[in-house]
């Protein structure tokens, strides 16, 4: 799947060279999440060739780079990572590849104003920043600045592309705010498989009650699950949600035990695979918002 895309990018680049004479080759970008692939393609346009290492539907918490992935990183001029410890393998990957490219952990570069503080006590920080549109807007700027640094000649194009993409993100933000506005504040409880929606919850005033922790790897315990069941009953929470890359068993048990509705499956850790109806950021975000509002507003 990766090769045709790469060839297509090379073909495009060749065509561009033919048209404009001896031009600089496209900026080689490697991304470590599906969301960053989209940002890189949108901002870079024809000036970059993007290789996404983590395929849609693959859990980025437990992703394991292959030799081909390491080679791609070694060749890359810019490596875009989500940061905030989502890619536990990042340091080893970069060191192992001997890459001289610039590694940008986008989440780590987010300013204090939009980033979330660490979980009290745990010291861990929530790496799922792309569920906040404010973070997405700033992430787009971060990517634009990196691309402009690497290819100053194309800086104007990068800016224009970034602005067009940000305009769409702002449109999405307005739509989401209106959509979630239909949900009374006392209904804004999000019971999910793992703790991936902290940013979303902060932006829209939800309370998150996750079965397991910030990574899909952490295991739930019986007392915590019992506490969730009590909470669902006490607060009369109408629905719970499973996630696309996490095992749905525990969520299904919550549904069976409390009789709550099981909402549509949320995309917690990236975009959906082709044909899922969530293969772009816009459709992924709309899917999540609709799923949450539909399930929680029904009686």
């Amino acid at each position, binding site marked *: 799947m990766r090769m045709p895309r790469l060839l297509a990018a090379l073909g495009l680049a060749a065509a561009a060279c033919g048209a404009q004479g001896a031009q600089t080759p496209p900026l080689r970008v490697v991304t470590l999440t599906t969301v960053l692939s989209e940002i890189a393609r949108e901002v870079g346009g024809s000036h970059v060739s993007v290789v996404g290492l983590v*395929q*849609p*539907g*693959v*859990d980025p*918490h*437990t*992703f*394991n780079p*292959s030799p081909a992935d390491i080679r791609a990183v070694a060749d890359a001029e810019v490596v875009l990572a989500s940061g905030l410890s989502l890619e536990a393998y990042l340091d080893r990957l970069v060191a192992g590849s001997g890459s001289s490219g610039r590694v940008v952990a986008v989440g780590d570069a987010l300013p204090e104003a939009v980033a979330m503080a660490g979980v009290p006590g745990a010291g861990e920080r929530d790496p799922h920043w792309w569920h906040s549109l404010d973070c997405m807007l700033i992430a787009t700027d971060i990517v634009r600045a990196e691309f402009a640094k690497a290819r100053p000649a194309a800086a104007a194009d990068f800016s224009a592309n970034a602005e067009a993409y940000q305009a769409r993100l702002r449109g999405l933000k307005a739509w989401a705010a209106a959509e979630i506005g239909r949900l009374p504040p006392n209904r804004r409880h999000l019971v999910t498989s793992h703790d991936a929606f902290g940013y979303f919850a902060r932006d829209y005033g939800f309370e998150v009650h996750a079965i397991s922790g910030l990574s*899909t*790897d952490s*295991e*739930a*315990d*019986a*007392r*915590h*699950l*019992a506490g969730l*069941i009590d909470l669902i009953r006490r607060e009369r929470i109408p629905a719970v949600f499973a996630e*696309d*890359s*996490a*095992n*749905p*068993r*525990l969520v*299904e*048990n919550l549904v*069976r*035990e409390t009789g709550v509705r099981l909402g549509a499956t949320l995309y917690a850790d990236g975009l959906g*695979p082709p044909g899922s109806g969530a293969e772009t950021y816009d459709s992924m975000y709309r899917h999540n918002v609709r799923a949450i509002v539909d399930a929680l507003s029904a009686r």
Partner: protein
Amino acid sequence: MSVHDLLLAPFSYEFMRRGLLSAVLLGASGGLLGCVLVLRRLALMGDALSHSLLPGVAVAWLLFGTSTSALFFGGLVAGLLTALGSALLSRLTRVKEDAAFGSLFIVFFGMGVALISKLPTRINLADFLFGNVLGVGASDLRLAGAVSAGTVALFAIFYRSILLETFDPVFHRATGGRGGLVHLGFLTLTVLNLVAAMQTMGIVLALGLFLLPAVSAYLWCDRFISMLLLSVGLAIGGSVVGILVSFHAGLASGASIVLCLGAAFLVSVLFSPRYGALRGLRLGSARPPAA
């Protein structure tokens, strides 16, 4: 905290009752099976078999999604391929069965890891290894019930053959026993129990449930029947205590059950009056007699 809060209140939740029931069911059959594995020195083979289930489960998930029966058959096929494959290799080539097992299971496990790391499944390695006894569904319980009942029934019916084949296979075969068949039956039963346990407990907990009670019982008993009964009792008791500890202390449930069984093993290793370490130390280098 009253006795009610300590022992009964946790089981007012359905997921706790389901988790306990599945652990008890599989503990009963695993406790029996474990004794044979331990006595026939096949304990490590159980470990190898369990890891080889992964590619079957991954392929089944890709083709059929989360259905319990699909995952069951996927794991079953992978496990049987490993078991039969190594039996065949050891008969057709110079390679001995243990080496064949060791090689095949690594290949299978590697295939499984490659599959789940590249393909969009909702299985991760932690789930496969440690599972989640709190996520037991109705179909999982039916499966555990059927496998457990089948195993106990087979032990009851073929008790004599199993006893003979375990302690004196040469005599068993000389008197017309179908030793090869019994051996193959054990492998199949082990795979069945592992697959039934895998989805809810993960393979590490499943092995803990099979081996730890059996090894502990081996340290206390001289008669086969009493070892079987003690092993089953320990498996069930460890499950109950483990789930309760998990509830009250907020520990991961699978790990908590294994640790309780591990504590029983440690106590047995140290304090068994005839075969324990303390007695061994007291008597100097004299090795305790084998059962």
